[in-house]
């Protein structure tokens, strides 16, 4: 631990200009550079995950036909694609983009610091993360193929090569996930300590912008829930490679143990990604409604409440897994109760919009659509949390549609919201609003056309991880719905070209961004766009005088009141 604290040597470069050359980029300790590395790696992985979805969805819509750009999909490949699509989207897209990229970019800027408190640990975190990404991608092409035992990796299938037939793929999968956990533990400690200690003078706990709070609460939640799964990953690795039998019933092990370890982490994990997305949304909605956030503390308490409760709901994934059926009743109660703090967050955002002056900019459209779509995903969680109906719905496409209606809004919509909102700060250029709107509507409409058919299919009993539904007489007739979903996916992927075109356009000849294009209050908008190394000149570090959401204050001419403007200057 101690050797990794900053030493003077690493910071000789601090005074110099930004990173030099591509290698310097990868070796930089600047939080903004690391944020961008995380962002682009995450986006690249999103593209991979999306293309995987394209391949297996094509197979589902046109079973057995060669998929353009891929070829015929074998059952082994199908399982590997689904498994790694899920794994990548959660661990290499949602987490790096929402937590690592924006956590790194925003926390120091928003609390008025020049960097993270441990810049070198920060760099190490990204390097471990990059390694893990390479390992997971490599696992797809090794002999035997990628791991195909689902992202939940239930043993004995995952533990025994004789069952999964992908010895190397399965091992690399576990290694990659474990490395990713290490990367996020390193990053998380940095976020937490930075927020606790490195705040600008005058910034009290309730002056911290919500998105920073949410990312840090999410990091704490991650840290406290992932431990048992790290232990579990070690056991699984030993089962795979040394022949131990932690999860092998034949020698006294217990396959269900893994499920407990996995979901004890897995459920808090969904809130680990939800909270940052909520934070992003709240900040954007407050800015573009020109309203003070309604119930700052209430929001904070509900976030903590969700965090605490989330440790007591994990077995709702295991209602019918063979656990004691009496346990299901307890978990039904806790699961349904957790909807209350989540809903409360939504009400807080609604109350913030009430009485506002809502500007439908591109980031605001993304933020609002996050709310609209996530409500559907959350509401369908009620069907699953209620044990009686989960008997039928478990592991059907209803579950699948439920969690795509939560994860897609969080990871992709939330990602785009944050990206379009902070892009001017990050790169000093404005994005094109018109292209942004085309991209937005194309993505949102096609998203619903992908997953509403899947809700219907799930209700009809279609279950998950099947490469060809023609094998099941009751499911075969619904092929048209599958074709609709796949078509919508292709349309959505094509609309991403608009996004990339917008990016290229703005990099090449975008309008230079002013310091504070959205007339926002938080500190990052007082730095240059893009902020230089160190963010502010050392003798002009910001000082904070008020909370982050002072919009429309009655006593003032201007409708916003930046956190760093001294009260005296006011007259």
């Amino acid at each position, binding site marked *: 631990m101690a050797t990794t604290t900053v030493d*003077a040597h690493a*910071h000789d470069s601090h005074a110099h200009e930004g990173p030099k050359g591509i290698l310097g980029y990868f070796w930089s300790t600047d939080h903004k550079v690391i944020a961008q590395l995380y962002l682009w790696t995450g986006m690249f992985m999103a593209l991979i995950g999306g293309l995987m979805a394209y391949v297996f969805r094509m197979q589902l819509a046109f079973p057995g036909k060669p998929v353009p750009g891929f070829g015929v999909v074998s059952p082994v490949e199908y399982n590997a694609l689904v498994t790694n699509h899920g794994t990548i989207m959660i661990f290499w897209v949602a987490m790096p983009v929402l937590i690592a990229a924006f956590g790194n970019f925003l926390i120091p800027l928003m609390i008025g610091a020049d960097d993270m408190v441990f810049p070198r640990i920060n760099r190490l975190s990204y390097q471990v993360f990059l390694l893990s990404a390479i390992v997971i991608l490599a696992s797809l092409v090794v002999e035997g193929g990628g791991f195909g035992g689902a992202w939940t990796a239930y043993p004995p299938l995952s533990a025994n090569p004789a069952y999964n037939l992908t010895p190397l793929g399965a091992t690399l999968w576990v290694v990659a996930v474990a490395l990713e956990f290490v990367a996020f533990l390193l990053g998380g*400690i940095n976020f937490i300590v930075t927020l606790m200690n490195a705040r600008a003078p005058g910034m009290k706990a309730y002056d911290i912008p919500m998105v920073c709070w949410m990312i840090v609460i999410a990091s704490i939640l991650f840290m406290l829930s992932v431990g*048992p799964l790290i*232990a579990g990953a070690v056991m699984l690795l030993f089962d795979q490679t040394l022949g131990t039998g932690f999860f092998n019933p034949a020698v006294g092990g217990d396959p269900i143990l893994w499920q407990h370890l996995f979901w004890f982490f897995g459920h808090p994990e969904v809130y680990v990604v939800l909270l940052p997305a909520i934070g992003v949304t709240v900040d954007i909605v407050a800015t573009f409604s020109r309203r003070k956030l309604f119930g700052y503390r209430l929001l904070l308490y509900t976030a903590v409440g969700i965090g605490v409760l989330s440790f007591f709901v994990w077995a709702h994934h295991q209602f019918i897994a063979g656990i004691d059926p009496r346990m299901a009743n307890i978990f039904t109660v806790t699961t349904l109760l957790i909807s209350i703090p989540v809903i409360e967050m939504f009400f807080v955002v609604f109350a913030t919009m009430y009485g506002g002056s809502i500007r439908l900019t591109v980031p605001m459209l993304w933020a609002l659509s996050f709310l609209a779509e996530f409500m559907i995903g959350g509401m369908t969680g009620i069907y699953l949390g209620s044990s009686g109906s989960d008997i039928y719905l478990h592991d059907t496409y209803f579950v699948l549609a439920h969690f795509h209606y939560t994860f897609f809004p969080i990871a992709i919509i939330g990602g785009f919201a944050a990206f379009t909102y902070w892009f001017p700060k990050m790169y000093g250029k404005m994005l094109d609003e018109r292209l942004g709107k085309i991209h937005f509507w194309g993505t949102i409409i096609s998203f619903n056309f992908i997953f509403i058919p899947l809700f219907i299919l799930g209700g009809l009993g279609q279950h998950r991880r099947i490469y060809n539904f023609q094998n099941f007489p009751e499911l075969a007739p619904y092929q048209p719905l599958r074709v609709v979903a796949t078509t919508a996916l292709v349309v959505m992927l094509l609309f991403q070209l608009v996004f990339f075109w917008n990016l290229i356009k703005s990099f090449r000849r975008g309008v230079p961004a002013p310091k504070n294009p959205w007339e926002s209050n938080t500190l990052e908008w007082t730095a240059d766009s893009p902020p230089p190394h160190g963010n502010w000149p050392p003798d002009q570090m910001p000082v904070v005088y008020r909370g982050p959401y002072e919009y429309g204050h009655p006593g003032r001419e201007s409708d916003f009141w930046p956190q760093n403007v001294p009260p005296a200057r006011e007259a």
Partner: protein
Amino acid sequence: MSSKPIATSRSATGVPTGRLAVWWVLASEVVIFGGLLASYVIHRMGHPEWHAAAAVTNTWIGAFNTFVLLSSSFTAVLAHQAAEHGDGKGAARYLMFTILGALIFVCVKAFEWTTEISHGYTITSNGFWQFYYTAAGLHALHVIAGAIIMGFVARDAAKGRELHRVELIGIYWHFVDVVWIFLFPLLYIAK
């Protein structure tokens, strides 16, 4: 020092940044060992026949190692005290004693494991042994890592630099000690 980020020198909570970080590291470690040990305890209760395997472990060796670790924690405290008084050389000397303790611990462990393995008790022998090797192995890794880091801290401390790290590594070392205090009864005494 001026080239360090300003962020590092701030302390909004009043607790030094390094100490905060170490506590968070330990929090994450606690849940890792917690998950492993909880899994072990649950299995152990479900498998009374593991007692036979547990009876094979050598309680005396375990007790000796407990003594070694406790003593090394004590020297870590002395090192901290020396560092508090600005005595870098003294701190480094005490840290060397702690590292020595770590070395003894690891050597004894190596001897113990060789004996056990040569008697045929390997990690795949049965449920007890797989937990035994995994838990003690994970702990031993922490001992080794701690000893290495301590070497660097001691080197700096001897030159009078970064004395605050003596305390940080000490906190970590106490944690490693506490984990062993849990492992010892669970793996050696409970027969």
